[in-house]
């Protein structure tokens, strides 16, 4: 049982040692990979494990980031409070949006969420005096202990590790199993006494919260926020990350986001037509590898394991 944790722990140790021998740029990229991985994993709770068409997850990412950013720049409150305020705001928004949307299913849910999310985006985008409008907010004051490149990296590594562990426990818990049951057969789940809507709402709030955490981590490493963070195209990108890595595995989204972020950073410098490249990769993936990279790996190498990794 215990050796299952060996690989993640080794990886964690490896990542902790990175700043010692890697140049700054790569530390920065790894930090981005980590927080994006957290974002994708939080989305996957809703869409992969819950089967909910969470089409506009980026809203929670953005609200988490903006919440933290606004608290840090405008209120005089201590930093740890600000860092938590963002994800709390995201969770609250998730609750409100969830209550409105959860009555619907599948495509209608997704579309209503997109329209609500777009409304939030439009307000942030135009409220120039409060949110900086389309400028975003550059130059956010981040406390000393996480302002340095190493400090930011370790903070992000620690928070991501803790959150991933929490999410993993949630997925493995009875709640998580019930969620998967709802995904596979909502009618049957209702019949055996599971309150479908309540479970889905809970999943949405949790997903929104951790998405908001990823947003606050963005603030730490980039010290700025932009409204594009919550634009619907980014929501689709995060969805692609989940798909790419494997929607039915836990670490799939992390793998998917790693590949996408690394590709985007290194390939887009040499290939001016990044979207074309991404589109072709995605098309090939959908046609040949619908289970994603990790899903494929799991099916190939551990067929007995079933759908969880």
């Amino acid at each position, binding site marked *: 049982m215990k050796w299952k944790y060996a690989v993640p722990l080794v990886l964690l140790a490896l990542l902790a040692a990175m700043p010692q021998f890697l140049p700054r740029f790569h530390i920065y990229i790894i930090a981005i990979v980590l927080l994006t991985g957290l974002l994708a994993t939080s989305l996957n709770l809703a869409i992969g494990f819950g089967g909910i068409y969470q089409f506009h997850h980026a809203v929670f990412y953005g609200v988490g980031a903006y919440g933290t950013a606004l608290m840090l720049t405008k209120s005089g409150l201590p930093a740890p409070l600000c860092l938590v305020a963002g994800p709390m705001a995201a969770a609250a928004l998730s609750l409100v949006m969830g209550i409105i949307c959860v009555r619907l299913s599948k495509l209608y849910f997704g579309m209503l969420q997109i329209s609500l999310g777009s409304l939030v985006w439009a307000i942030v985008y135009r409220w120039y005096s409060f949110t900086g409008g389309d*400028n975003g907010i550059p130059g956010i004051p981040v406390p000393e202990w996480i302002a340095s490149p190493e400090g930011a990296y370790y903070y992000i590594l620690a928070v991501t590790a803790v959150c991933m562990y929490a999410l993993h426990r949630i997925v493995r818990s009875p709640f998580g199993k019930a969620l998967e049951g709802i995904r596979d057969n909502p009618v049957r789940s209702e019949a055996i006494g599971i309150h479908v809507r309540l479970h889905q709402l809970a999943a949405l709030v949790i997903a929104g919260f951790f998405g908001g955490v990823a947003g606050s981590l963005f603030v730490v490493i980039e010290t700025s926020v932009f409204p594009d963070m919550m634009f619907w195209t980014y929501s689709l990108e995060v969805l692609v990350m989940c798909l790419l890595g494997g929607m039915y595995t836990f670490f799939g989204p992390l793998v998917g986001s790693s590949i996408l972020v690394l590709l985007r950073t*290194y390939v887009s410098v040499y290939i001016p037509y990044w979207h074309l490249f991404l589109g072709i990769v995605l098309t090939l993936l959908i046609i040949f590898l619908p289970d994603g990279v990790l899903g494929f790996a799991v099916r190939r190498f551990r067929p007995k394991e079933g759908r969880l990794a």
Partner: protein
Amino acid sequence: MRRIVSVLTGVIVVCCVTAFAFAGPTIKVGIVDTYTGPVTTYTYDVRDGFKMGVDQINAKGGVLGKKLEFVVRDDTFKSDVGLAMAKELILNEKVDILMGTINSATALAISDLCKKEKVPFLVTFSKSGKITGEKGHRYVFNLNENTDMIGRATATVFAKKPYIKYWIAGDDYEYGHAIADAIWNHLKTLNPKVQMIGQSWWKMRETDFNPYITQILAAKPDFVIVATGGGSMVNFQKAAQATGFNKRAPFYQHTGIELSTLMPQGQNAPEGVFGTANYLFYYPETKVNKSFATDFEKLYGRHPKSGALYGYMAAQFIANAYKKAGKVDKEKFIDSLEGMALDSPIGKLEVRKCDHQIVLPMFYGVTKKSPKYEFLVGGDLVSIAGKDYMPTCEEISKARAK
């Protein structure tokens, strides 16, 4: 799982290998700018003007014996992309100097980054007054005009005109508001009789101006100040032409008489639009300006616009600053650049020491058809010298102290 670890390790190894980018025998400049969408009519000129300057300098032996080279990145007018690219250029490509961008918000974000990383940043087309004003610092230089300058220069012209009722409209973003505020605040100080009877602010990249135009016309202002940014200049003029707005209510745009705005419209551009510009290839008709324009035309097959001047002069300033510094050192580069004055196609241009802002002459005129060219030009041109309208160094230090 094992497979994932090995894949990730492999990727990391590749990263480490590419990390050893050579700090070689060249001076590297990184340009982040927008090369997608309607603003390319401005940004291509910056890049090409810069290239022309760089090639000339390299042909004469380079700078301190080294070749000057540059890399470009397209930020697609998005601030988060621009910031990430700037980070990549500084941390990965290890550029000596960063240059860019047309989006003021991006410029401010990159400026903040360069302050932290202590890398000189030369702004080439963003015009927010904040860049060298309240958000200015040692590591940022602005090599084009800024909104504060535009506001002051234009206000001096308007103050003498008989208009009382003004309507202010523009793109609802940093640049739009900055220009409008600058013009209006200075105008009100110079001529307290003026009144603002209304405002319209549309989203950036707005393509349909008709609802706003009808709203403005209904209010019957004496004059309209249109604070559009690069992305909307041409679209607004098109809408003005289609609705006859230019004939019903006189309006003004910064860069309204400039080639970048007028050329894409050909003979269909609206006449009678008031505007300011900082470079026109046909005015003043000095030998220096003519030869600069001819050189540019020979290389690129088109007339140079203001971006070409800024790009070209950026190359000159970089080369001369390094020469004066004597070595490739960022701090010494900055010390040499501030206060430097060089000859240009439109006269001597100085980069002020107190705020790192370049001082440019401003040309004010009105669009009209020309028998010589297939596009409209600025007519009735009046030139306003830089020193007559620049904010004083005291005003700058007060703004930065806030």
